[in-house]
Each structure stands twice: as C-alpha cells, then as structure tokens.
C-alpha cells in the first residue's frame, strides 16, 4: 500500500543533507530564554538576535506588557469564539478604531494573524469573474489567499510596473474587476515596492490595489504607515493589510480601507468567520504597542540608521548584501555548500540570522537573511559584523571588499 508519507521522502532527504552539512537543523532553533529584544539564549549561549522581524523591539514594550497583564486580569485570557459570534469584545472594536485612525481610514478589520488577513481579504474580494494580479515574489499567504479565491490568478514580474501594465492590458476583460496585490517591503530580500509607479498603473487601468505592509508598517513613511505613505500614494491604495507580529511585537493581522463594503466583507470572509478571535491580552498589548510606536517616532530613525550601519558593514566586508538599505538585509551566497556551514558558524559564534534555501528564495541562490532592530546598539551591530567576517573566512566564503 502507498504510504501517506511517501511524498515527504524528497524533503526528508533534503533536510538530512542540510543537517549533515552543518550539524544542526536550522528550522528547529529554540530560543531558550529571551533576555531583551536583541539578545536571547540559544544552546545555552547568549546570542545576538538578527533574525526576528521585531523591528522596533516592541515585543518587550513595558507599556504593552502592562496592558496585557491588566487585560488578562480583567477580561480573561481568551474569547472562545469567532469575531462574528461571541468573539468580539469592546477591546476588539477599540483596536480596530485605533488602527483605522492611525492609517486615517474609514474602518479596519482585525484578524487572528497576518496570514489570515491575506487569506481572508484576497479570497473574499476576488470572486469567480475577477482577476487577481500578484507580484511573482509574493508571500505564501498571498498565494494561499489566491488559491482560496475563485478568481483567475496572474503573476507579474517582481517589482515591475511595466510588466504589471503589460499583463493588465493583455487581459482584455472589460467586465471583470481586477485586484493588484503587492508588498511594501519584501520579506526575504528587503526589496521595496515602487509604489508610486504601481499606483499610476492602477489609476490608468482602473484596477483595485491592495498592499501588504507586513514589513513596512512602523518602518517606512513619516508616520510609519508604510511604503504607500513613503511615496505619497495612500489615496490610490484601496486596501492595506498587515500584521502586528513584526513592528508591534505581538500577533494578529489587519486590513484597513475607506470602502464602506468592508463591513460586508466581515460576513463573507472564511478566515475571519471560522476561527477564534484574538484574546484580550493580545488585543490590549497590540493597542499599547501602537501607542508606543506613535509616541516614539525616533525608533524609526534609529532603525534606519542601524540598517544603514549593518548594510555598510556588509559592503565593506565584501559580502553581497541587498542593493537597497532597508531593515531586511539579505546576504546572498553563491552556493548552498557555503551557506549552511556559514549559518551554523554564525550561530556558534553568537549571531542568529535566518537561513533561506532555494527554492524558497527568489533567484535560486541561498540567503542569510538579517532583520535589524531599532534597539540594536552600535556595538551589537559591530560585533555581528565581526562575526560575519570571521565566519565567512572560516567557511571559505569569497569576499569582494569595496573601497568603503
């Protein structure tokens, strides 16, 4: 008889060789104890965290911790129900108002994760007769949302407004609604979307535009509203989706919009309707973290300074870092045989980053993906750079230093 698990044989082999090449499973790292936003204990060692997406360090926000404690004490630790049944407390509505006000939008929907926000919004909005037009490098949650939707799905070349335009023109479907989906900052590479050009294509073709600001919320734009704010095209964005799990340091997802029909989406959105809502302590912590973020715009400046510091250091060392400076900085290596030992050596020397292997990387080369935090000190960044230099040398990774 066929085993249910025979489809995993290839994966088991691939994982086995990754473990054999480096001595540990990179996808089973345990942070034994978080010490601060930037340091955690891994394998008994204090390790610098450069791969947690905790851009503003707010997972350790005093204000958020206190709010969570108070909410748990007064409201309990769970809602035991979906948003459309018994799972909406006044805290949920209050947070939705807070998020909508922050984005200066009519209304907001809060989901249990960012993954579900994409799944829910994309599948609810794009119906059988509609077209979804996705950036080729979209996050898994966007692809999964498109599979849950009945729409026809077209990919366009990553970050290419010209290709988007060409593919929209090619459609020749005047009676179908079209929804373009892009991200503000791409999670693997740190690439930033050319939002103004995408907005121009949207205007010219009459499509709708959704932007996933998961990695750009709290990071880009004068107020931290993301890539659309940074390029001054928020009015062209019909829907912004995002997550609380990065810059706000908690968990949950959202969608904001000026379209009054958002109220109807609540009743036509399976990942919103058929799952339990976020517990009171998470909702309260998220609202408090948002207040923290608004109260400390200097965190965003510090974050960008830190990103520039790390990026310049990589370039000086001769590592191939992302072109654009953003808080996601991916170091591209040429081969998996270099990447696995290097990632392991970094961890042994006390620096945690994310190892991304093809085919989960955009151009079939492996990445050491770093995420920078506002709370990293200059000394921590210099230390991480020294460790990168040492690990590269020990692992025989070729360096091409530029004159700095």
């Amino acid at each position: 008889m066929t085993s249910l698990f025979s489809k995993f044989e290839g994966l088991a082999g691939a994982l086995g060789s990754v473990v054999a090449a480096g001595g540990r499973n990179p996808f089973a790292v345990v942070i034994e104890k978080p010490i601060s936003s930037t340091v955690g204990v891994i394998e008994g060692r204090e390790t610098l965290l450069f791969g947690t997406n905790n851009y503003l360090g707010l997972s350790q926000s005093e204000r958020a911790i206190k709010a969570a404690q108070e909410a748990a004490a007064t409201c309990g630790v769970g809602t035991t129900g979906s948003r459309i049944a018994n799972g909406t407390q006044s805290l949920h509505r209050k947070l939705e108002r807070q998020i909508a006000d922050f984005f200066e939008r009519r209304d907001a929907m809060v989901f249990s994760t960012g993954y579900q926000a994409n799944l829910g919004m994309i599948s609810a909005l794009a119906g059988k007769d509609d077209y979804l037009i996705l950036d080729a490098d979209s996050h898994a949650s966007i692809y999964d949302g498109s599979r849950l939707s009945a729409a026809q799905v077209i990919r366009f070349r990553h970050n290419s407004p010209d290709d988007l335009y060409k593919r929209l023109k090619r459609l020749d479907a005047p009676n179908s609604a079209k929804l373009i989906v892009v991200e503000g900052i791409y999670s693997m590479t740190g690439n930033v979307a050319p939002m103004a050009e995408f907005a121009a294509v949207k205007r010219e073709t009459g499509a709708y535009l959704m932007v996933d600001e998961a990695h750009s919320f709290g990071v880009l734009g004068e107020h931290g509203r993301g890539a659309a704010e940074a390029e001054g095209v928020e009015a062209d964005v019909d829907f912004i989706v995002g997550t609380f799990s990065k810059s706000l340091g908690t968990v949950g997802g959202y969608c904001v919009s000026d379209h009054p029909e958002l109220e109807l989406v609540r009743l036509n959105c399976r990942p919103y309707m058929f799952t339990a809502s976020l517990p009171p302590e998470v909702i309260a912590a998220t609202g408090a973290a948002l207040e923290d973020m608004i109260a400390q715009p200097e965190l965003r400046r510090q974050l960008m300074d830190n990103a520039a510091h790390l990026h310049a250091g990589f370039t000086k060392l001769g590592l191939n870092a992302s072109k654009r400076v953003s808080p996601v900085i991916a170091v591209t290596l040429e081969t998996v045989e270099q990447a696995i030992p290097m990632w392991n050596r970094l961890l042994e020397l006390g620096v945690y980053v994310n190892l991304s292997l093809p085919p989960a990387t955009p151009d079939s080369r492996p990445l050491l993906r770093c995420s920078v935090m506002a709370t990293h000190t200059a000394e921590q960044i210099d230390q991480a750079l020294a460790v990168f230099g040492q690990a590269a040398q020990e692992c025989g990774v070729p360096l091409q230093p530029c004159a700095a």
Partner: protein
Amino acid sequence: MSETVESVSALIIQKLLANPKVPRDIDGNCKIMEDLAFDSLAVMNFVMEVEDSLDVSVPLDKLADIRTINDLAACIVDLKNKG
C-alpha cells in the same frame, strides 16, 4: 492567430532547451515537474517566459491541471482562441 498545439509545443521545447540543465531528449509528452525536475516556482517562472513570447497569460489555477509540455501547449492555444 495561427498557433497550433504542435507549433506551441515546439516553441516551448526550444525555450526549455535553452536551459543547459534540461535533458536534451525531451518531447511533448514529457512531464514538466517529474521529467524536467522543475519545482513549482521554476514552472511558474518558465510559464511567464512562454507567456511573453506568445502574448498570452495563463492563469495559475489552469497550471494545476497541466502535467506535460503538450498540456501546456493545448492550454495556451485554447486561451489564444478565446481571446
């Protein structure tokens, strides 16, 4: 609008052979993922190239039903005839 399954299939094979990693002896009955060892991302990226050569867009949901080079060719011819 004169493409046939044969002509589109020939064009696909010609494009595939431009990639040195693809076996030399492929034909229209080859299964794209199994015989060419393409992962799902590689298939989507390859289809994008074919789309541009033939000025057509193949919706992703259609790709789910495509296994061989000839399946892809037939799907494209079908899409072009509708257009």
